């Protein structure tokens, strides 16, 4: 495939589960510094797409390139080390560890067994944890056990764990699910701040939230891309209206 300037280039990607094509010949490009929102009805293949990019699911065919480097066939943890961060749909944090430990473990150093044995929590690490904790609004609860956080705080903590790694591509699966109105606002602000200097892909259902944050919106339907463009353009697209409102 051709080399591009895109941060992420997904080309002719397909994956089928027992003959069912969850992703069907999909092509998608994400720019550097772009915040892309993917929307679509349930079962459109949004989460599967993120799974394919981060390696949780293996593609049947097609190519995924990150900074012109082919990703298909690369192990998950190596993709992370290349700079891809993924937040899961349900907050996936270490409930029994403190907020501090959750963030510290995510610091991208000492990732091999020997490295981890030698790893020391230096001032640099502590400062980074502090900075990220401030960013996600958990600066005052660093010593709290993460399982005691509210649902919204857990979502933020997982975003914070990804920020610790300073990824170039950040993928967030429904980051505001289960959040209050106020928490949503704070999250929108957070996302706007953190998409500077990196590309972000967000899956979301809440249209007001999407309108607030999206640079560009991609609409997926039945494993394919239905429409792509600005929020207004997408919202007035008759195909999109048809899919969302039904027949």
């Amino acid at each position, binding site marked *: 495939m051709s080399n591009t300037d895109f941060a992420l280039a997904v080309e002719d990607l397909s994956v089928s589960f027992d003959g069912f094509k969850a992703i069907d010949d999909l092509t998608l490009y994400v720019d550097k510094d772009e915040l892309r929102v993917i929307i679509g009805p349930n079962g459109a293949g949004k989460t599967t797409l993120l799974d394919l990019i*981060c390696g*949780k699911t293996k593609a049947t065919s097609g190519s995924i390139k990150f900074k012109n480097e082919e990703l298909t066939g690369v*192990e*998950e*943890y190596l993709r*992370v*080390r290349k700079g891809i*961060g*993924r937040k*899961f749909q*349900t907050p*996936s*944090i*270490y*409930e*029994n*560890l403190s907020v501090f*430990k959750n963030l*510290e*473990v*995510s610091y*991208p150093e*000492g*990732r*091999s*067994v020997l490295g*981890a*044995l030698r*790893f020391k929590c230096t001032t640099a690490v502590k400062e980074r944890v502090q900075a990220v904790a401030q960013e996600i*609004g*958990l*600066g*005052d*609860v660093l*010593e*709290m056990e993460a399982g*005691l956080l*509210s*649902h*919204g*705080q857990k979502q933020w903590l*997982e975003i914070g*764990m990804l920020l610790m*790694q300073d990824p170039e591509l950040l993928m967030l699966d429904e980051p505001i699910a*289960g*959040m*209050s*109105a*106020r*928490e949503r606002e*704070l999250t929108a602000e957070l996302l706007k701040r953190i998409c500077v200097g990196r590309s972000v892909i967000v899956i979301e259902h809440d249209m007001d939230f999407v309108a607030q944050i999206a640079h560009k919106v991609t609409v997926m339907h039945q494993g394919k891309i239905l429409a792509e463009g600005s929020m207004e353009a997408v919202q007035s697209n008759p195909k999109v209206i048809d899919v969302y409102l039904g027949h």
Partner: protein
Amino acid sequence: MNNLRQWFSKSGLGSVVLLAILLVAVFPLTLDIFRLNLIGKYLCYAFVAVGLVMLWGWGGVLSLGQGVFFGLGGYAMAMFLKLEASDPESTKIQTTPGIPDFMDWNQITALPTWWEPFKHLPFSLIAVLAVPAVLAFIVGFAMFKRRVGGVYFAIITQAVALILTVLIIGQQGYTGGVNGMTDLKTMLGWDIRTDSAKYILYFVCVGLLLASVLLCLWIQKSKVGTLLLAMRDKEDRVRFSGYDVSMFKVFVFCLAAAISGIGGAMFALQVGFMSPSFVGIVPSIEMVIFAAVGGRMSLVGAVYGALLVNFGKTYFSETFPDLWMFCMAALFIGVTMFFPDGLAGLYQSKLKPWLTRSRSAPKAQPPAAPPARPAESPRMADSAPPTAKPAQA
């Protein structure tokens, strides 16, 4: 003083010191050499239990085949001792003098080449650690890279235990078969059957056990320990934070295997023989029971568990030989059902709060209550009440 106490309790060293006092001073001063040797034997199993705390408690990987590594360590040591006991002078009535007696009985006329290196003590000592670790690496790498875990892994380790037992029993001429390796006498000319040798071996055993506990404690406090706990909770999150989860499991499996190997070697030295009855499925499961009774999260607890269960085993098997197996099963079921964290958990949840209460009671001022929930962050303060937690699966 207070700082020291705090540091002790935080690092978990206090309980290790207590255990050390018990093993180094209390037991040798109060027990005769026969009983002390018995304790030394139990402590060999404690090595396996300590390994299981790391592997099962912290790593979340249950192995039902730790007897394999105990056995391999034990056989590595026993092979050296057997060769020394089989010098041409004391085996001159054999058809082929100078080889172990069981080889002679099986019409083997020359020492097999793979036995040769075990003539050297340094090689044998390295083998005690390396052979279990290498086997654990091979099995672990093959399993964990393919993401085999949980029950499937436990079953495979059982299969390994069975295979090794069958192999040892079947290859009688090379391994001593079902009788194992008996009549171990001296190590570099030093008679290991005398009382003084038994004392020394007991202290060596205690020293190695405490060193293993400290090593594991250090690993628990390192980032590896945190990662093991994190993996047990959310394996995918660790993987998608850039860690090769399988290698951490392989590491902890190898660690547990090597520690079990030391236990096996000390067993061969203190008890004077090694046999396949310590390798198979049943002993492997018994070893898991030691860790479970002691508390699978607590290194020190595992040592107590091994001591206590073996005490019980000796006592009950002498008094009610027919009932012992049922007692053991009842103990395991009871512990897993009512005290999933074993003795250590019981201490943490029941005894410790009671102790602190009775200690602080005479003082006028009650200890400052820890903040129940730290105040929420300012950014959160004006947000709506947190939404209900999703139901735990």
